[in-house]
């Protein structure tokens, strides 16, 4: 529509489409390859080459992973910190964002300034470690949830979102004798479900991807989340995660690594359509401007 159909324009369009198609493929091809090899038979994987659809299907890598409880346990740890951690995030963030959305509240501006400062300057890794350690949180899963209970950025975005909700609805509830916490729970949060879902998804992705905090705070390998396990297996090449009764010849380190990557990635890909729906609508960007 915008352009005339000259030959130069058509050539440009052709090249443009091709490059973009190629970029898109490069972004997903590695995932397809990893998924395919994880389901390929050890023999086929050993032959090498680009496998996008296994010719000989096999579940042996997954059977191997689940033959001991090392990896299933780390999956459970990750599920736990993702679910509980996200609930903590949402509770803490919305509880704090709601009072801050009321301009008449005394002390609001100093508190907001205090939050903004933390976005500019932080104590850093070592002092934070000693605070967490001093609270006896190290080597517990709380260390992966409590020290990140609120993201200052999300807090301010949510505060701006709450500010857009018309006061009238809240006032009528108050006249009916509801206190402020009741207003938040019964009126404001139900009205903010799409926003809460978006923040929940982004917090959940962050928890699922937690890696360095676990390295820093958790020594006990029984409490390692999947990302730390993945590093052990893929990058540090510790491939003995399965039961020792498994014959070494029956499994390929390569397919095992692929299978672990699949486990560390699939939950993200499952929620991805929901994530995309929200940021495509501009919820994240649009709500900041309030």
């Amino acid at each position, binding site marked *: 529509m915008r352009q005339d159909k000259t030959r130069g324009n058509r050539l440009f369009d052709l090249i443009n489409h091709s490059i973009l198609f190629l970029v898109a493929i490069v972004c997903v091809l590695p995932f397809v390859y990893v998924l395919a090899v994880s389901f390929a038979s050890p023999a086929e994987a050993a032959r090498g080459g680009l496998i996008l659809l296994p010719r000989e299907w096999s579940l042996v890598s997954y059977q191997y992973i689940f033959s001991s409880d090392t990896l299933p346990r780390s999956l459970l740890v990750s599920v736990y910190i993702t679910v509980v951690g996200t609930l903590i995030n949402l509770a803490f963030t919305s509880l704090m964002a709601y009072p801050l959305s009321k301009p008449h509240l005394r002390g609001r501006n100093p508190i907001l300034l205090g939050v903004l400062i933390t976005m500019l300057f932080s104590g850093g890794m070592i002092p934070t470690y000693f605070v967490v350690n001093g609270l006896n949180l190290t080597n517990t899963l709380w260390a992966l949830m409590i020290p990140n209970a609120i993201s200052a950025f999300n807090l301010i975005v949510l505060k701006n979102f709450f500010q857009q909700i018309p006061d009238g609805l809240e006032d009528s509830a108050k006249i009916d004798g509801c206190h402020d916490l009741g207003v938040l729970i019964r009126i404001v949060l139900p009205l903010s479900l799409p926003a809460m879902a978006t923040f929940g998804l982004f917090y959940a992705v962050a928890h699922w*991807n937690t890696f360095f905090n676990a390295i820093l705070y958790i020594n006990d390998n029984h409490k390692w989340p999947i990302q730390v396990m993945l590093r052990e297996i893929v990058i540090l090449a510790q491939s003995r995660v399965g039961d020792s009764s498994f014959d070494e010849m029956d499994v390929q380190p390569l397919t095992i690594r692929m299978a672990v990557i699949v486990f560390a990635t699939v939950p993200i890909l499952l929620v991805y359509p929901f994530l995309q729906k929200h940021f495509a609508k501009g919820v994240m960007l649009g709500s900041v401007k309030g």
Partner: protein
Amino acid sequence: MKSNQTLAEGALQVKRPLRQQRSKHLLRDLVRDRWMYLMLLPGVLYFIIFKYVPMYGVTMAFQDYKPHLGFFGSPWTGMKHFIRFFSEPQFWMLFRNTIILALYNLIFFFPLPIILSLMLNELRRERFKRFVQTLIYIPHFVSWVVVVGIFYILFTTENGILNELIYRITGEKIAFLLEADWFRTMIVSQAIWKEVGWGTVIFLAALAGVDLQQYEAARIDGAGRWRQLWHITLPAIRSTIVILLILRLGNFLDSGFEQIFLMITPTNREVSEVFDTYVYTKGMTQAQYSYSAAVGLFKSFVGLLLVLGSNWLAKKFGEEGVY
């Protein structure tokens, strides 16, 4: 990043609705809003304990910190750790590595999302555009461990598929993951693969705001595709580019800690060790707490100066600042 600027301003603005105003009596207000303060309490405690106590805790950089004595009981030593840090030969190595990685990212990574979003903007078929967008955002959401893990699998000299391909073409294998010479290339390629797609989101949002009538008018005046790009599209995203550049400069020293931590090997340490990884090595694995806190403080302080400096610079050039 227009959103960030309104973020800072919006956070502090005071807009009073008619229904609820501050009365003249402080006490009456406090009692009326008692539930509000109760709700604030967990969040305020969180920020004090996990943000402000560590901020006070940086004073350990001027102490000989002993875990059993704490931030308040450890003996003071003045600038000892800073003097040691600045006189270490490693200081310049860390400085060089951090700066070079940041420059590589600025030169090789920064322009790519802009180019990519301009290309996406030229697409007229909405479905193809959505298809491309859907796929290029995916890598942003997976963890660095997954990204580095996939790179390890693709590039390893033991049957890594890309190394096999190179072997068939050139007849030799390249130790991408071990050789120090390849470290920076690997880091930048990973960053590009993971974040280039996501980087377009903000530019596409800015481009969506361009009035289509402008293009029509330009076409009637005889402007071709490139002239439209130069006179309409680029000016539309100029301020976004500047703001992102400022944010980039502000985070200049944050060189992707998790990624580098995962990519460090004993063989590439001379090019891969940066301030952040050095803090971790000295502090957590060698238990030199105060010394590593001093290094961390130096880094945060320079980082803060960079943020404020680049923001000042932007305002000077007539753009709106971020903070």
